[in-house]
C-alpha cells in the first residue's frame, strides 16, 4: 500500500467532505406542505387517495388485503411501496407487479396499466370488461380507449379524466366530489 499516498489523501479528504455534507442534511427544516414532488410519487399518492372516492361491490371483497396491481413496466419504483403501510376500508394495501395481463385476478382491486402496455391496451381492457377492477393509466387517451381513470399532465399539474360509463358497467361507484374535480369522457367508437 506504499503508493496509496496522493490519491489516498484526496480520497480521505473527499470522504470526509461527503460525510460532512450528509450530516448537514439532517437539521434541515422541513419544507412547507405545498412542496413539489416527483411525478410518480405524486401519482402513487393519487392512487391511494382515489380509494376514498370509489366504492367496490361487496362481493369483490375476497381475501384479507386490498390489491393495487401494476401491469407492465413499473415507473413508480419505491414510491408505491410506501402505500403498503396504509389501509383501505380496514384492509392492508398489497402491491403486486404483474408482467402480463392474464395474471390479473380478483386480488387486484386497482390495476394501473403502464405505458409499456400501450400496444396491447385494447385487448387488455377488453379482457377486463365488466370486472370490478378500477383501471388507471397515464398513457394518452387511456379513458377514451375504455380505461376508467386517466392521469393527465397539464403544464405543471396532474388532473383526471374519468370514463364513468366504464366504471358503471363494472359496478364501481365513483363519488361526486371526485367527479367534480375531473373531466368526464366517453369511450370512443372504433
Amino acid at each position, binding site marked *: 500500500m506504499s503508493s496509496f499516498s*496522493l490519491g489516498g489523501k484526496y480520497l480521505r479528504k473527499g470522504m470526509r467532505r461527503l460525510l460532512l455534507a*450528509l450530516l448537514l*442534511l439532517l437539521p434541515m427544516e422541513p419544507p412547507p406542505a*405545498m412542496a*413539489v414532488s416527483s411525478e410518480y410519487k*405524486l401519482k402513487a*399518492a393519487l392512487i391511494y387517495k382515489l380509494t376514498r372516492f370509489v366504492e367496490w361491490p361487496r362481493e369483490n371483497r375476497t381475501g384479507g388485503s386490498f390489491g393495487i396491481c401494476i401491469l407492465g413496466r413499473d415507473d413508480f419504483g419505491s414510491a408505491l411501496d*410506501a402505500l403498503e403501510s396504509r389501509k383501505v376500508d380496514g384492509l392492508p394495501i398489497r402491491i403486486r407487479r404483474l*408482467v*402480463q395481463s392474464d395474471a390479473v385476478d380478483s386480488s387486484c382491486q386497482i390495476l394501473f396499466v403502464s405505458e409499456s402496455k400501450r400496444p396491447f391496451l385494447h385487448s387488455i381492457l377488453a379482457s377486463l370488461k365488466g370486472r370490478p377492477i378500477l383501471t388507471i393509466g397515464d398513457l394518452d387517451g387511456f379513458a377514451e380507449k375504455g380505461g376508467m381513470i386517466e392521469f393527465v399532465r397539464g403544464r405543471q399539474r396532474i388532473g383526471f379524466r374519468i370514463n364513468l360509463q366504464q366504471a358503471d358497467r363494472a359496478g364501481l361507484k365513483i363519488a361526486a366530489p371526485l367527479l367534480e374535480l375531473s373531466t368526464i369522457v366517453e369511450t370512443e367508437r372504433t
Partner: protein
Amino acid sequence: MKNMLKTIVRTALAALLLASAGGAWAQGKEDILDLPLEDLLSLEVTSAARKEQRLKETAASVFVITREDIRRSGVTRIPEALRLAPGVQVSRIDANKWAISTRGFNNQFANMLLVMIDGRTVYSPTISGVYWDAQDTMLEDIDRIEVIRGPGATLWGANAVNGVINIITRNAAETQGGLLVAGAGNEESGYGSLRYGGQLATNVAGRVYLKYNDNDAFWNPKIKSDAGDQWQSLRGGFRVDSDATDRDSWTLQGDAYRSDEHQLANYWADPGDPASAPYAPWYVIPLVDDSVDSRGWNLLGRWEHSFTSGSALTLQAYVDHTRRAEAFSTQVHDTLDLDFQHRFQPLKGHDLVWGFNLRYIRDDFENTFMASIIPDHQDFSLYSLFVQDEIDLMPDRLRLVLGSKFEHNEYTGLEVQPTARLLWLANERTTVWTSVSRAVRTPSRAERSAAIVFLIQPMPDPYPPLLVYGYGNDDFHSEELLAYELGLRYQPRDNLSLDLSLYYHDYDELETLEVHGDAAGIPYLAFDNNLLADSQGAELSVDWQPLEWWRLQLGYSYYRFSSSLSASSSPLGAIAPNGLATPGHQYSLRSLMDLGSDLSLDLWLYHMGAIEQSGYLSGQPVPAYTGFNLRLAWRPRENLELSLIGRDLLDDHHLEFVGESYLMPTEIERSIYAQVRLDF
C-alpha cells in the same frame, strides 16, 4: 485495496446510520399521503417526465437504453451495456480494456465520443478518450443511457464529434430500500452490488452503494494460455436528492473507486541502462506481468430552479480526481467544473436554452523511458458559452433548432460549433428530421506534448541502437467535422416502430503521425493534421412486440469510409489508420420473452463484420464473428430473482479487437454465470 475498502465501508455504514436516523426523524412530519386530494392536484410536477414522448420529437439520431434493457441483458458493467444500442461499436480488447465508438474511429484511445455520467464528463484529457475500466456504477440504479450518434457539440461541447453517451442514474427517491445483486461464474469470478436508500428528511432521499467485481483472465492465442489480464474493481458512492421547495430541487452525489488490473505487455528496455543488456539487441522485454492501478473519486452538486413562467435554471459543479499508474506512465488529473444553464421562452413559439461552462484541469505525470509528457505538470482551463433556440415554425408540425457553442481552450483558442436542425412531425406516426452541424475534436495533451518510444532498431557494431520517438506537436490543431444527417421515425402499428438515420460526415485536419528526419538523419514521428476523410453510414433499429409477452429488437448499422493524405503530409511517409477499425456491417437481434409471470427468457444474437485494421500502430485485421447470449430468469417471489446468463456462447474464444502495440491480441472467452437479485 484494503484501505479503500475500509474507507468505503465506513462511509457506507455512517451514511446508513444517518439515513435511518433521518428516517425516524422524518416520521413525525406530514406525509404526502395525508394531504387532501385537492391539495395533491394543486402540486406542481417538476420531473423531466415524458422522456419517451420527447424522444420522438428529437432532431438527432438518439437511442435510449432503458433500465429494463440493461436488466434483461444480464451485463455486469457499463461498457458491456452499450452493446445494446445499434450503431455503437463495443469491442473488447482484453478483460479490462474496451474500444468503444459510434460512427467509426474506434481504437483503444477512441477520441471522438463524449461520455458523461450524471452530467460529469469522464474522458481523459491526456488521450481525449475514455478509460472504460474506470467508468461504472451500480447498474440497477441507472435510469437510462442516452446514446446520441453524430455530433452533439452544440449542447455538449468539443469531442462530441461522432457521438455522446449520457449515463443517467435514478433519483434517490426512486431507489429506496435495500437491493443486493450477486453472482459468479467462470469469467465473472465473483461480483456483488449492495444499495440501500432511505428517507433522510421530508423531501430528502438518499442512497449509498458498494460494488465489487472480480474478472478472470481471457485467452492469449499467441502463447496459448491465460492472457494475464484478470482484474478486480471496487467502488462505492452515494446520491442525495431533495425537492427542497416548490421550485427548487438539488442533488449531491459522489463516488470513489479503485481497480487493480493486470496486463501482459511487451515493453521497451532503455538501451542506455546497463541493466538492459540482457535484452539487446532488440531491447524488448517480453510478456511483462504489469499491473494497472486505477483509482479516483468525484463529488457533484446540482441545483435546479423553476419559475412560474415555465423557465428553469440549473447550476452544477463537480470535482473529479483520477490517478492511473502502469509501468510506462502514471497520470493524475484533477478537474473542477462549473456549469450553468437557463431555459426560457422569450417569445411565443421559441424555446431558448443558453449556458456557460468553466473547467479547470490540473495534470501531473510520472514519466518513464517509454513515455513522457513534457512538461510533466500543467494547468489548463477551458470556458464556453452556448445558445440554442427551438423555434415552432408551424405549431406541432414543423420545428427548427438553431444553435452554437463557442468554446475557448488554451491550445487552439476559440472553437465555434454551430448546428441547424429541422424536425417535421408529419403525422402521429411519422417524424422526419434533418441536420447540418460542425464539431471539432480539440488536441489531447499527448498530441501536444508526448515523447513516446515507438521503435528500437538494432544497428551494426559499433553503433548504438536507433531509437525512434513519436512526438507531440505544438502546432497540432483541432480535427474538424461537418456532418449532414437525415432521419425517419415511423410507427406503422402500435406494436411496431422503426428508427432510421443516414449520415454523411466530412472530416478535415484529421490526426496523422508524420515521419521526419532530424538534423543527424535519425527518423522520428510527429503528430500532425494531414488526413482528409469522409464517411457514410446508416443506423437502423426496429422494435416489434408481436405478442404481449414477446418483444423483438433489431439493430443494424452500416459504415463506409474513405480517406486521403493531404499535400502537406511528409514526403517520408505518414501513419494514418484512423477510421479503419470499424466493420462495414453490424447486426443485432434480441428476443425478450415473458414465459409466465415469474419466468423470462432472453436471447441475443449479434454479428460484427470484419475489421480492416485495428490498433493504431499494429494495424491488425480482426475477422468477423457472431456472438450469442442467453439469459433465463426466474422470480419465485416478488422480491427475489434468480438468473442464469451465458455470453459469447458460440465459440470457446474469439478476437474482437487488437489494442496498441505493447499489448498482445487477446481473445474473449465464453462466459457463464448465475446471479441472484434480492430487494429488501
